């Protein structure tokens, strides 16, 4: 009785998935239409350019011919991109569109491979759970891969599935990043993109889940949202606080990273520096980097470049010198008068 009930549930689900696949096929054809229009437009542009180029060459308009050649060169790059996209869409495997039995078998296989297939008829979703994903000794916990059946038809516009961290261990500086290749529950498919799309188009739902898991099990440091090296967040070199990438300031003098509280900028050259590599000008009391700080030639106190005159004197010493000079002048005058 229980087995029969389960079978009915799977048949109902198979029907639902089959309907979505039919809609997906419809949207694929529409997509082909759009891409074909774009491709056609590009071809027409090329033909037009060819006529213009022929005329320019015939009439010996060399500058014009060169300008058209350069435009054709630019257009060729776009053309190859359109061609690639067109080929991707139009390529169809000889594998037949699945029928109800095929999809039913897929669902049974998912249960066999993953132990359990979670079905939610209300939200029209199916999902499986992964094991605890551990990459380079960093445990990221298990993930739920949830496919939204109604969104299957929009495969060419948006991703119809989410990768949800169950016992989340997100990156220290971005809670949205729960895996080096998952941000905001969306997976960066990378090398798996075409295979995932093919699996969904052909109703190979078990392969779809398998492919997602294969990506989750793999760490590609070259194109991760946040590398595992920085997973726990960056530490401020001064106070040790964990800081996000946006809050991280790089001191150009000591080549280390600091939090906003432990960094500043030089008011003279506007370079970002840490508090250790800056000091306060005795005159203006602004922070200044070591390179923009000079010593007064008279009092030997430290001042920023802006607060020293051309002779290297601070305001006090400049004033003092002037007073001394005046005094000398007065005394010289007095002596002369005497």
């Amino acid at each position, binding site marked *: 009785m229980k087995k029969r009930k389960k079978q009915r549930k799977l048949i109902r689900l198979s029907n639902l998935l089959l309907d979505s696949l039919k809609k997906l096929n419809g949207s694929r054809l529409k997509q082909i239409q759009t891409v074909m229009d774009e491709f056609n437009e590009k071809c027409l542009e090329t033909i037009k350019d060819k006529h213009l180029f022929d005329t320019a060459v015939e009439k010996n308009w060399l500058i014009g011919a060169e300008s058209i050649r350069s435009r054709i060169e630019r257009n060729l790059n776009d053309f190859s991109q359109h061609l690639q996209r067109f080929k991707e869409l139009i390529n169809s495997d000889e594998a037949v569109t699945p029928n109800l039995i095929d999809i039913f078998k897929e669902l049974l296989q998912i249960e066999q491979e993953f132990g359990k297939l979670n079905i939610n008829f209300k939200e029209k979703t199916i999902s499986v759970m992964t094991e605890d994903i551990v990459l380079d000794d960093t445990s990221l916990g298990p993930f739920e891969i949830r496919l939204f059946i109604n969104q299957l038809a929009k495969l060419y516009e948006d991703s119809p599935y989410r990768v949800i961290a169950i016992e989340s261990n997100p990156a220290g500086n971005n809670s949205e990043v729960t895996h080096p290749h998952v941000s905001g529950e969306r997976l960066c498919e990378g090398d798996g993109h075409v295979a995932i799309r093919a699996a969904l188009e052909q109703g190979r739902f078990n392969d779809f889940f398998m*492919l997602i898991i294969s990506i989750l*099990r793999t760490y590609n440091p070259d194109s991760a949202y946040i590398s595992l090296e920085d997973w726990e967040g960056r530490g401020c070199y001064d106070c040790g606080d964990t800081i996000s990438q946006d809050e991280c300031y790089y001191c150009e003098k000591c080549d280390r990273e600091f939090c906003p509280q432990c960094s500043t900028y030089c008011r003279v050259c506007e370079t970002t520096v840490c508090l250790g590599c800056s000091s306060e000008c005795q005159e203006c009391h602004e922070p200044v980097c070591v390179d923009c700080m000079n010593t007064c030639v008279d009092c030997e106190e430290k001042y920023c470049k802006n607060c020293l005159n051309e002779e290297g004197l601070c305001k006090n010493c400049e004033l003092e010198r002037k007073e001394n000079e005046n005094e000398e002048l007065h005394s010289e005058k007095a002596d002369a008068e005497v």
Partner: protein
Amino acid sequence: MQILFINNSGGGFANHLDIAEGTTIEQFFKIKMSGQNEEDNLIRVNRMPVSKDYVLQDGDRVTITPTKIDGARSAVLEQIA
């Protein structure tokens, strides 16, 4: 003898292939996935795991799925764009 081969590495292509009678799954893997390790792939015949010496039969459905695939952000964003 013809089998359906679904190769989930790369393009995820599904094709009907002619193979010689008596070909084992191990031999088939070596021909089709040359240079790759069997351990790095999930091999299923008619949706079931089989032993290396399984002799392929006419109409079999062979699926090979890599266990590790590089994720990246660029490809997806390019597609959406």
